[in-house]
């Protein structure tokens, strides 16, 4: 909707908001959101939820918090992801091998990646201003909320430390173009141009979830 109005024409200051990087790095809240650390896992596990229902609920919540596309894939082997216990409160029946397998072999069956993609009017790689970077912040918020919610249900969750774009393609969220960006083909158009989807981050969790069909569209 915002793209229907050319703010640049009606507001000569808009370009500054979008493109001019802040003079003070402290203006960037994305770093602050990641700096505070993850909360503990709630000591009481929620009733074992049905993976399909839980996946639907997680996707619903992620979209409500601002994600445009959400997909779930199993954590493939070889991803160097460490999910720390995050505090002193451990779930009673936490598996002893709580860290996902980072070696080669079959996909780790009990760890999943929830990939969130957010649409942006502006490419955060190019637009370095507060407005241009805002999509990164929105992504950080979605991931923060998702991870926190999963931890509060008694399961482990942490922000993915690897590049989730290939997994987004596996989850059916779109196609990765030659520039390494995820595009949801033919759907989003802004200002007469083809819009793009910017994959922000993902959450790795051992919460039992139902994975998306890689051939089908994400949610």
């Amino acid at each position: 909707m915002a793209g229907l109005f050319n703010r640049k024409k009606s507001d000569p200051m808009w370009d500054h908001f979008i493109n001019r990087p802040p003079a003070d790095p402290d203006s960037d809240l994305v770093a602050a959101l990641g700096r505070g650390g993850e909360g503990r896992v709630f000591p009481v596990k929620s009733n074992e939820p049905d993976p399909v229902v839980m996946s639907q609920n997680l996707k619903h919540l992620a979209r409500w918090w601002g994600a445009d596309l959400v997909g779930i894939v199993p954590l493939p082997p070889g991803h160097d992801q460490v999910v720390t216990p995050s505090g002193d409160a451990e779930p009673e029946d936490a598996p002893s091998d709580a860290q996902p397998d980072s070696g080669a072999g079959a996909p780790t069956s009990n760890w999943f990646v929830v990939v969130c993609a957010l649409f942006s009017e502006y490419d955060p790689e190019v637009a370095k201003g507060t407005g241009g970077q805002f999509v990164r912040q929105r992504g950080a918020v979605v991931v923060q909320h998702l991870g926190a919610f999963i931890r509060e249900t008694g399961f482990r969750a942490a922000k993915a430390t690897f590049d989730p774009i290939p997994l987004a393609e596996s989850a059916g969220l779109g196609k990765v173009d030659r520039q390494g960006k995820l595009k949801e083909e033919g759907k989003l158009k802004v200002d007469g141009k083809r819009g793009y989807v910017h994959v922000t981050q993902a959450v790795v969790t051992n919460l039992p979830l139902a994975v998306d069909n890689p051939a089908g569209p994400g949610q």
Partner: protein
Amino acid sequence: MAVNVEEKSPAPQGDHERPLDSDNGTSRPVTVIPLTPDFGRSARVVGQWDSVPASESPHEKNKRGELGKPLFNWYFNRTSVDALSRIAFPQSSADQRNTLQHHVARAPRSKVNPLKPLGSDPAALSRHIKRVAEFLGAGVVGIAEVHPSMLYAGNQFFDDGSASIGRDKGGKDSPAVTAAKYPYAICISTVWDYEMAQAHRHHLGDHAYHFSQAQMSLIYANLVSYIRELGYEAVQNKAQPMPVALAAGMGELGRNGMVITEKYGARVHLGDPILTNMPLVADKPIDIGVSDFCKVCKKCANTCPTNSISVEDKVVHNGVEKYKINWEQCYRLRAHVMEFWEICLTCVTVCPYTKPRAWWHTLAVQTLKRTPKNLRILTVLGLKWLDDTFWGTVPRKRIKWAGYDTGIVPVKKKKGESAAAAEANGHGEAADPNGKIGYYYPLKENTRRFEILKERQERAARSK
């Protein structure tokens, strides 16, 4: 005449002047600020007012234990039984690091840019700031000229869980000095999800409330950083949101003590306004007929489970004529229902202005707005009848959302039967299928309100 910033107790009438901020301090245009601020028709200053000390706000009193042990424990020692509630608000959490507010509150404070890259054109800056706020997610944005009556006496307000921790802890200026230092206030609101707010007195309603609060703390933090980036000062925790929102034309004060906006009704969340020395153009109070409607409607007063909302006319409180709610009675409920829900929201939900954004809502508000004041009673009666007929006296809608279910059988209307009649016939009632967490549990509607009032009057008459 230059303003005497040391003035402690402003006179009730007359105007005074204060210098506007300018780029380099060489030219200081002088503007006249009325000592009686304009809050619109819904709240009129009619006498001597005093700035309210921040220490007298409900949460602050509670933190000192002045409201009793149950509320004290509710504030400091609660952990919600609901997983989503535990990440929605720091006071409900098991670990505050799982809440967004915790991280936003601890974000470093950016410095004021010594340059002013966008200049100091007030009209252009005002337009720009409003667009930026909307881009960041604000629902309604308004700018008000700061008046000392809008500021806390004591000049600062710290509330755990807000974006205020670690910020602006200095400041011993009087409200008059602060108003001169920061001539403008920017107030924004986030909007509660309409469907979820229908699930009042349920965890779903809590989520609509608390997550919009989290979003708002993020928007405010971004906006403060951006204003500093533009070379101007921006501070929070000094102004009361309600008077700023009224003066900024964001809405009018309703009988339920909430700011009622034109687009979203009462389902908005106001945060701590930003005070700034950025040259801006202040908005004016609006008139969308709230005073006229509230005089007749009284839906919120009739349905308030704690009788906190008065059915009587406006009263003069602290020199301001307005509808006054009994906040303490409202606040005290929380400790006793926290197992089931945290925020009541019934007065917001029943308000006829609180509707989804649709053409018919806009049409209704615009019709009332454009009706001459002396004829508004007719429009109000018509709109009230429409609201009762189509929406019922109390909205009772079954909401299913992300695994939650409010668990009420929706109002089943027979052909030709109004929603209100269906409720009266008992179709709106439903057993709580989930035992403890369900719609309206554990309170019932305050249907005996008028009988209670009548009984009280009779008792008083007998005692005389």
